[in-house]
Structure formats: C-alpha cells, structure tokens
C-alpha cells in the first residue's frame, strides 16, 4: 500500500516523461476519451470545414428564408435565407480561434506573472497579487461588457478582453505551484551551484508546472468559450454578419417561435463543444494531477 501511494505520487510528478501510463489511464476514463473526441472533431471542422461547407456563409437567399432542415439545407435556413449548416461550420473556426487565442494569451501572461511573482516574492508579489485580486473581484462578464462597450466590439478586442480577464486566475494557480516548488531542494541545489534566476525559473521550475498549466489552460478554454459566446449573444462580441455561434443564437431569438432550428443548431454546437471541453478538462486533471490538487 505504501508502495502504491508512492507510485501514484511519482507518476504525478513527471507525467510527460512517461506517456505510456498516461494513455493507459486515459483508457480507464471513457468520459475523457469522449471529451477529446469531441474537441478534436471541432478542431477538424474548424480547419477543413469551410472548404466543405455547401454554401458561402454570407450567401443570402431571401425567397428561401426560414426553411426547415431539408436535404438541400441540412440545418435549414435563417431569416436571410442563409444556410445554417454552413454558418455553424464556419462559425466553429471563429469560436475556437477567438476563445483559443484569448486562452493562449491568458495562459502565457498569467504564467509569466505567476512565475515571476511567486519566485521573487516580497513587495513585487504582493502588489501584483493585490492587483489580480481587484480584477478578480469584478464579475468577468460585467467587466468584459464595460470594457468592450468602451473599446468597441471587434474580434481582436474580444480576444484581448478574454485574455486580460483570465490572466489573474492563471497567475494565481501558477504562483501557488511556484511557491511550493521554489522551496524544494532541487531548486536550492541549483542556487548553490550558482544558476541564474532565468535558468531556475525556466529549466528547473517551469517543466514541473506544465501539468498544472495544461489542466488550467483547458479549464480557461472552457471559460473562454463561455465568455465569447455570451458576449456574442449580448451583441457585444463579434459583429454580424460573422457566423459567431453566440451571435447567431442572439439573432435567432426573434424567430424562435417560427423556426426553432435557427436557434437550435448553433446552441447545440455550443453545448456540444462545451461538454467536450469539460470532459477533456476533467480528464486532463485526472491524468496529469492524479494527486488531486484542489485548485478550482
């Protein structure tokens, strides 16, 4: 039993170096497999979808507006007679791109801030963390709305806002791991042989943060999709005629009673993607941090 515990702890420390057990664990968690499948499916569609879409997503065909799903229009048509199937497919690129870039930005800057703040400590850490707390003490959607309201809604601005808003959460997680790692003796051994801060941060500490960062990134990705879609829905995100799913749902509300499919397909796409990312994120946590660190 003592041995078993040890094995688990050790596997948790260096999951990337030994991928085999990770995959074995993956098979033990069917939900995770489903999650990865869904996410890869959407990535596939985002990459190759636009070339497969039967229509141009902006192609209007007013005589055919609000057609129910048929052989010609698999998901039906919207209020302008545009093909919903094509729009949902093209829209996947939008969601993944905007939420993905936002997440990448948050993870990158959050990681840097967390690393430096945690490693340096002292007043620098205190100031940075208090600032992060301030950002965290405003509801993200509200802050996003207020900022976009003043910056003006555009795809780039949405990315920037999403990235900015989630920096504090990533920074916090990274910082807490750094605080734990920097007192480990392998870091002290590095100081004793005169390694510079740069080497210690990026060669000694960073590799050990990667599992936490991967789990955190997947969670942030889920939150980003949430935020991007909500902003689109409120009309503060990506602007028409872009086939943003949130935006499509927002516009479709008017036609809800006449043509439920106008709303159903983009909403379903969001739901499916979110479920996929959720399963994936939960699975990543199980695989990479089997010790179960409670950083929610």
């Amino acid at each position: 039993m003592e041995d078993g515990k040890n094995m688990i702890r050790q596997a948790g420390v260096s999951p990337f170096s030994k991928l085999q057990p990770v995959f074995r664990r993956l098979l033990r968690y069917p939900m995770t497999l489903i999650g990865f499948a869904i996410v890869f499916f959407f990535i596939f569609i985002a990459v190759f979808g636009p070339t497969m879409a039967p229509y141009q997503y902006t192609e209007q065909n007013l005589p055919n507006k609000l057609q129910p799903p048929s052989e010609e229009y698999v998901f039906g048509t919207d209020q302008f007679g545009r093909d919903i199937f094509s729009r949902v497919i093209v829209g996947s690129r939008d969601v993944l791109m905007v939420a993905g870039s936002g997440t990448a930005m948050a993870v990158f800057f959050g990681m840097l801030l967390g690393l430096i703040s945690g490693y340096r400590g002292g007043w620098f850490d205190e100031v940075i963390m208090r600032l992060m707390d301030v950002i965290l003490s405003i509801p993200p959607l509200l802050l996003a709305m207020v900022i976009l309201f003043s910056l003006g809604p555009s795809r780039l601005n949405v990315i920037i806002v999403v990235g900015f808003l989630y920096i504090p959460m990533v920074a916090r997680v990274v910082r807490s791991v750094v605080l734990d790692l920097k007192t480990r003796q392998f870091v002290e051994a590095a100081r004793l042989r005169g390694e510079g801060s740069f080497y210690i941060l990026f060669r000694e500490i960073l590799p050990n943060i990667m599992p936490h960062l991967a789990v955190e990134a997947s969670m942030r990705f889920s939150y980003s999709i949430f935020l991007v879609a909500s902003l689109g829905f409120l009309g503060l995100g990506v602007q028409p005629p872009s086939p943003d799913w949130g935006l499509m749902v927002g516009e479709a509300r008017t036609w809800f009673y006449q043509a439920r499919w106008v709303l159903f397909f983009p909403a379903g796409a969001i739901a499916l993607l979110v479920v996929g990312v959720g399963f994936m994120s939960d699975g990543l946590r199980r695989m990479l941090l089997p010790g179960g660190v409670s950083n929610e």
Partner: protein
Amino acid sequence: MYRYLLRRFAFILLTLFLASLIIFTATQFLPGDVAQIILGQFATETAVENLREELGLNRPLHIQYLNWAGGFIRGDWGTSLVSRTPVRPIVLERLGNSAMLAVMALLIYVPLGIVLGVIAALKRDKLPDQLISGVSMAFVGLPEFVSGLLLIAFLAIGLTWFPANSSINPDTTFREAFPYLVLPAITVSLTGLGYITRMTRSGTIDVLRMDYVRAADLKGLPAWQVLIRHVLRNSLLPTVTVVAMGIGWLLGGLIVTETVYGYPGLGRLIVYGIQRQDLPLIQASSMIIVAIYTFSNLAADVLYGLLNPRIRVGE
C-alpha cells in the same frame, strides 16, 4: 482574527476604489459625445454646449470622477440619460428582483451540488464520479443563454409547464412572480451547480485521505457519523466560501439569464443601459454589482474564519 478582518476591509475599500476607476474610465471612452447622444443628431451647437456645461463634462476628468464618486457615496447616483429620472430607485428595485432570483437559485443548487459532490467523492474515479465531474465541468462552461433557451424550448414551449417569458412587472410580489422565476432560477443554477459540485468533490476527497478519518473509522463510529462529523465538517469549509462568494458571482451570471428571459433584474438593466449608452445607469449598476461581489467575498472569508478553529482560536 480582528486584525485580519481589518486588513480585509481595507483591501475591500481599495478594490472598490480601483474598480470604480476602471468603470469610470471605461465609460469615458464611449464613441461620441454624451451631450450629443442625449440631444440627438439634430441639436444645435449651443444646446449641446449648454448641456455639457450642465452635466459638468467640460471639467477635467479627475474632477468629474471625484464628483461622480462623491455623489455615489452620498447616494446621488445620477440621472438616467434615457428616462431622465434618478437612477437610484430603478437600480434598487431591479436589485430586489435579482436578489429574489438569486436566492431561489441558491436554494436549488447548493444542496444539490453538495449531495452530488459528496457522491462523486465517495465513488472517486468510478463511473458515477466521472459522470458527475464531467457533466458539472460542462455545466460550468455552458453559457446561460444556451441552457436557458434549451429549457424554454423543452419545458416552456414543448411541455408548457412554465412561462417562456419572465418579463414581469418590476414591482410584482414574490408569490405572483414565482412561476416566472422557476426557469431562470434553474438556468442560473446549472452553472452554480457545477461549481459547488466540483468544490465539494475535491474538498471531500482531500479530507477522506486524512489520517483522522481513518482514525474515526477505527474508533468504531458508525459510517454515517464518520461522514458527517469528521468528513463533511472539514470538507464543506471551502464549499461554504464558494456559496458565500457565489452570491456576488450569481449577480454577474444573472446578466445573460435575465436577458434571455426578459426578467427585470439588475443584469437586464445593465444590458439595457449599454444598448442605450445610458452612462449613469451603467456606472451605478456596475458599482452595485462590484460592491456586492466584494462584500460577499468578505462574508465568505469571515464565515470561513468562524467555522475554522485554526483561525478562530488562533495560536
């Protein structure tokens, strides 16, 4: 403990100050001139200039900020640019409605989340846990307009159990409003449910691993007593803070839900304000939400301190 509270309180004042700066500055970058917006495109130069003077828009920004912040503290929250009436009564009335919705949502998702979280923890890594954790993670990320509209499609339009639209009169009593509250409350609850479930699960798993749980087992206490007295008493501590924090967080989450259902709450009011570019309305309702948010964070900390002997009793 007292010193700690004092520190926390000072931090809240700082937060509110910085947040008010952010909100004030953000609303200054508005495209176009406020006076122009109010008077419309065809107003004369002089009329616009007079209004600018009247609203104090010609003064330097920091003076404008101090005037606004000072007014806010004194209870003068400004006049709505659209309705030309004081903002305060509108905001407070909508706040009441949002609170009604929030309380109802809390009553749904907190107990349910705790139960699901404990089940997931006890069945760790088995199928029930994978299902509960995966789904709750998905719920956390599921935008309210998606879940809301799907609920409307099935429960309101399909089964006609509840009204699809909750745009009630702002001054309706709770009893009358109840049927209109059910669907929005469920919608908000889904996200909250995800949070609570995950927190309870991870907290409970952490505690289940503790030596004192094994010790309690081996003392021969009945299993339910071990669970309730020894496990949950410790594992629900973090959950308590999430619940308290959730009150503020709910207000943020209500923005989309209220829009979906047309429910006259604070969230709907902000969206409306943004659509109409009604600055005082946006500023006042944002500040209220931020204030409630920070104070519920404080409440969470205090509650945590009171429940945790390590902090309550000190050394």
